[in-house]
């Protein structure tokens, strides 16, 4: 395994994963060794201000919420696309900038249309 260019990336990746998973594993080992699990019917019941919760929460919601979530999702994914662009921003030519601008404007135009259709405000 000569030092291929990706070696530092893999090492960093492993270190990051270890850094994240390590304490969790330690806590899990501790819980397994010292504090026993004691699940129970009342403990696992749904918490509703001290009462037993009646009925179920799987209820059909007003479609307004669904649209709200979709629009958020769109802009969330857009932010993910912006990330690599932002990192390599200095080395790019003007054309790349314009392409990204077109991408942004397309989405903003979508938002303006939705806003104008009053999707975000309901009675």
């Amino acid at each position: 395994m000569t030092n291929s260019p990706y070696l530092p990336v893999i090492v960093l990746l492993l270190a990051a994963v270890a850094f994240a998973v390590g304490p969790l594993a330690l806590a899990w080992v501790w819980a397994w060794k010292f504090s026993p699990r004691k699940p129970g019917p009342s403990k696992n019941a749904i918490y509703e201000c001290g009462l037993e919760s009646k009925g179920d929460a799987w209820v059909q919601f007003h479609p307004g919420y669904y649209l709200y979530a979709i629009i958020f999702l769109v802009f969330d994914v857009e932010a993910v696309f912006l990330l690599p662009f932002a990192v390599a921003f200095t080395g790019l030519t003007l054309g790349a900038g314009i392409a990204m601008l077109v991408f942004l404007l397309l989405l903003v135009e979508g938002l303006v249309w939705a806003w104008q259709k009053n999707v975000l405000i309901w009675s």
Partner: protein
Amino acid sequence: MSTATEAIRIIPKSPGANDEGQWLEVSMGPQHPSTHGVFRMDVVLDGERIVKLKPVFGYLHRNHEKIAENESYLGSMPYTDRLDYFCSLTNNWAYALAVEKLAGIQVPERAEYIRIITAELTRFQNHACLIGFLTQDMGASGTPLMYAFREREKILDLFESLTGARMMCNYMRFGGCRVDLPAGWIEQARAAVASFPRFLDEFEQLLASNEILMARTQGVGVLSKEFAVNAGVSGPVLRASGVNYDVRKADKYGIYDRFAFKIPLGEHGDTYDRYMVRLLEMRESLKILELALRDIPAGPIVDPKTKIRGFRPKPGEAYAHIEAPKGDLGFYLISDGSSNPYRYRVRPPSLVNLTVLEELCIGHNVADVVVILGSIDIVMGEVDR
């Protein structure tokens, strides 16, 4: 099975009626950060909007009236502290007023002044705490409440040096007060009252013109004048709807007619008016306090004829009510000549004010219910008695 009220079950509406979703029934139950104690509301929600709201009480029903029937008249006085546990001195005063009306006891001049001073201090700290809790319900977690409790501690120090306890004063007796003002108390009280306007300005600058507060409270929970009067709402909630009724002016109990103070009235009757009326009432209380602290006379503080033990009023009944910080607090006593009252009834302003909660909340979002409930200012010790 401890089911909630069976009145409202999940009512699955036919989906597609007008593309509304199903209704969800949830209970903002006894243990809830925003219900100011153990108060429960069974709420039917259509998404975020309130469709139906049934309040459920009784989680703090401590049988105060049944216990009072087996206690002597004096024995019930410390229990009245625990009715509205923010304003123990106004509860004491209302109970003492009812017994004085029942037995026809006169109260000396100095005791009347002390009663007014303690009542207005109680009103001030109650309104300050309420505004703190109201803004906390709106999301300003802690800051205004810290300011309010800082001033409340000053007033509680005054109560502790006068009556011995911070919250449970047990201070009024039938015919006056239990113990005279200790040396230096009046100066301490004057210093505290002098520092309150600065606090009120700070409070107002912190909150009154805050856009978030205005957006969350203006036009929310509008209470019309006629409905307020018919539903027996009393106190700042009523005056925020524009009804000019304050028991201090209407009933002229105590010596309130000697002090010139105005009654703030609101026009729209929404949550912002209820908030502003309380701020203005605090300023009026300060005016009364300055006048009362300035010309309090010397003299006896209790009518010497009244006996503490073995107090047996003649058979008969009496009803007396005062302007407590939360509303029209009344005591109705029926005596049969023995040392225990035959019937001891407390008219709770918080319980009656809650009559309007459903009408105010329907159509609003869940977050507004929290703010409307906060602006009605209920305390569970008085609601459930």
